[in-house]
């Protein structure tokens, strides 16, 4: 390497992300952001100062060695860059696309103090995509242990836990209720943001590790968690069933035809491929004027899908302002580019009937921001006399989700007041040998956090299996950090992992 880099010597501008032109992309489901070229990647990698305090690592929920992999990119050692990322993140092609980097690693990037931060997410995505294209996969030479692990739910939390346990030599089976694996990545996030082929490629990598996927299996109803731990012989179980139970609006008119949840719209479109109706059998009625309530990632996806399905006008109604909008910055930016009309500080009060059980319009009030609430955001309050009507024939609500009730209905697992599974700091539930993580524990969060939870649970699972002792039950993994025969206790799971 040459001279030491300084903020003055690095490229001042971020390498721009090649994108599909707006007019073209609103008519298709092909990815909007096309991905960096090798040249873009090398140039962007040069922008990293490799600063000694590495704030980005702390900013990443799973602590990827970011300067490490960027340095390898700079040296054109792409394979090593991939190996570094996959030490901590198993799904770089996915996380590079969907993580809210602007509030994580890129937020604390030193370069960002002066210039635009290093485009860490885009670099990560490039590494992930290259690995898929090149067929790289780190399949360790795994010595089987005698443990059998059951994973419920095939979203990012379940996938991450499955991968770690498979690497520890366990016999891992993932159960998924849908007919395809992937969780929200498959049924929720649309192809133009995260192509299904990418998700499938990552799932194939898990298969290569020996993970078995059993779709069409509704755990709780086909068999219970208790049965898994009992007669089915699973030594440990991980629950990552997500939080996909849509909250209802609770305003007059919310059960009219033409009012649906973003989950329903997205599932019909993405998983059931209603966008190809009648080639695929599942129908979806698109409106002319669509209003989406909410401004999270789910809402952005619902709006942009509506546009691509032929809606003439799509608007967003959100009770707070743009500053509080929880979606990824890039998604809001893309939505604005695509001509979505945003009604910030607006709240719906009633959905109006067209006389045939359909939607004619929506009555709204304007809001203003008052005192901060529990979440630290300023609480929106209605402005008196500000009622007005929006013309619409399709209302989509994306105002959050609750815990799915099925596991709670069918097991004795302890739930919290809001119906989520209660766990300790090590993600152990009230049932011995049963761990849980992801949205079903935290409520709706992010892909990377769900993945992090899956890995943390795997770590606790290993600790639990190491000291498998019926009388003592579960011992706290956190207390037992130490060395034993020169190995971390969490690695003492009767398996030796040798990276080939």
């Amino acid at each position, binding site marked *: 390497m040459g001279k030491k880099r300084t903020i003055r010597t690095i490229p001042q501008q971020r390498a721009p992300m090649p994108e599909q032109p707006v007019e073209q992309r609103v008519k298709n489901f092909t990815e909007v952001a096309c991905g960096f070229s090798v040249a873009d990647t090398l140039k962007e990698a040069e922008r990293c100062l490799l600063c000694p305090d590495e704030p980005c690592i702390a900013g990443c929920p799973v602590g990827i060695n970011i300067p490490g992999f960027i340095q390898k990119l700079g040296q054109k050692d792409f394979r090593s860059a991939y190996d570094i990322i996959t030490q901590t993140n198993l799904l770089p092609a996915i996380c590079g696309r969907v993580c809210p980097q602007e509030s994580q690693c890129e937020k604390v990037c030193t370069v960002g103090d002066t210039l635009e931060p290093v485009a860490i997410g885009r670099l990560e995505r490039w590494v992930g995509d290259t690995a898929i294209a090149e067929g790289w996969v780190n399949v360790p030479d795994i010595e089987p242990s005698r443990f059998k692990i059951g994973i419920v739910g095939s979203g990012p939390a379940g996938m991450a836990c499955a991968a770690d346990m498979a690497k520890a030599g366990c016999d891992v089976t993932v159960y998924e*209720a*849908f*007919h395809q694996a992937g969780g929200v990545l498959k*049924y929720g996030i649309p192809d133009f943001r995260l192509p299904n082929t990418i998700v499938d490629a990552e799932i194939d990598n898990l298969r290569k590790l020996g993970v078995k996927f059993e*779709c*069409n*299996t*509704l755990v709780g*109803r*086909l*068999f219970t968690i208790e049965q898994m731990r009992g007669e*089915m*012989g699973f030594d440990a179980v991980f629950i990552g069933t997500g939080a*996909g*139970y*849509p909250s*209802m609006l609770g305003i007059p008119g*919310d*059960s009219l*035809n033409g009012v*649906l*949840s973003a*989950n*329903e719209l997205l*599932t*019909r479109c993405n998983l*059931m*491929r209603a966008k190809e*109706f*009648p*080639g*695929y*059998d*599942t*129908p979806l*009625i698109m409106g002319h004027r669509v209003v989406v309530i909410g401004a999270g990632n789910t809402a952005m996806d619902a709006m942009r899908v509506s546009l691509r399905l032929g809606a003439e006008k799509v608007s967003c109604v959100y009770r707070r302002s743009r500053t509080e909008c929880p979606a990824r910055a890039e998604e809001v930016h893309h939505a604005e580019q695509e001509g979505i009309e945003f009604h910030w500080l607006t709240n719906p009060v009633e959905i109006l009937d067209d006389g045939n*059980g359909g939607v004619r319009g929506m009555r709204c009030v304007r809001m203003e921001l008052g005192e901060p609430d529990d979440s630290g955001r300023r609480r929106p309050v209605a402005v008196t006399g500000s009622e007005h009507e929006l013309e619409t024939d399709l209302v989509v609500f994306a105002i959050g989700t609750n815990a*799915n*009730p*099925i596991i709670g*209905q069918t097991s004795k697992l302890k739930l919290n007041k809001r119906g989520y599974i209660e766990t300790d700091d090590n993600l152990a539930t009230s049932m011995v040998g049963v761990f849980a993580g992801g949205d079903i524990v935290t409520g709706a969060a992010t892909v990377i956090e769900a993945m992090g939870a899956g890995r943390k649970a795997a770590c606790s699972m290993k600790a639990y299996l190491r000291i498998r002792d019926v009388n003592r039950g579960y011992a706290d993994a956190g207390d037992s950090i130490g060395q034993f025969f020169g190995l971390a206790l969490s690695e003492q799971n009767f398996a030796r992992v040798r990276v080939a």
Partner: protein
Amino acid sequence: MVERASFEITGREDFSEVTYSLVVHHPLMAKAANPGQFVIVMSHEAGERIPLTIADFDRHEGTVTLVVQAVGKTTREMQQTCKVGTRLYALVGPMGLPSRIGHAKKVVCAGGGLGVAPVFPQARGFKESGAYVIGVLGFRSKNLIFWSDKFSACCDELIICTDDGSAGIKGFVSDGIKRAIERHTGIDEVVAIGPPMMMKACVETTRPHAIKTIVSLNPIMVDGTGMCGGCRVKLGNEVKFACVDGPDFDGHKVDFADLTTRLRRYTEQEKLALQRWSDTCRMKEPLVSGGRNVAATPPHPPATELLELPDPFEDVRGG
């Protein structure tokens, strides 16, 4: 562990031109199934996820039985493609809360149209728990009757109603319920399953007598796991998801007008799908199914006419 499910169709019976049963291999499900629960089926990869009630299960053979009415594209297509030896692409369940077979002493189990088969496991469940079971079954006419032997075996009394009077009493399921109420005192519970209009009529029949009436609702579903909210139904002011909070609900609270409206959401698309599908079928050889010529030999009637015939709402109108 139990043998892995193959989703293979091991048995099929055609009861009439529009009704057929499929016996599907799924040992774990046969073990887990309870009266009142349902499954979601995809017959092929590009198919729709459709809910069907578990009409019977055989824990010994490891099979579940579905009874299907051919009303639209998917159910008609299945009528042709689901032959013994073929496999369903996807089958998931058992879904929904099992019916509460309580300590009722005397119950009426009423089924009409596509609700005849689904009420069977409940009738059997009540019989096994020691109740006096009065079965009320509604068909349009005599030649459409099926499973009367199965019902006879688990009902203490069986009332058959036909719209045209060709068998049993002339009238609707609700007339049958009325008769049962006239003849018996102390009916603890009525279970009514069928098209929304039939269930509504049954609920109105029992309301003056304040007899607890359970109905099994059939809104349009997608996932069946509580994830989409498409199956929401109104009970008074409350909103419930039929797939996880039901499908059984207290009939006296159900807003049937809301259910009927929501069921009509995709009428246009359903017609289009059926039209398109029957157009492609016409080009192939005559369609034979279960030994019976279903899609009438030429001239093939247009799809819209076909749809009229077994419309789930028209069938056993008013119950």
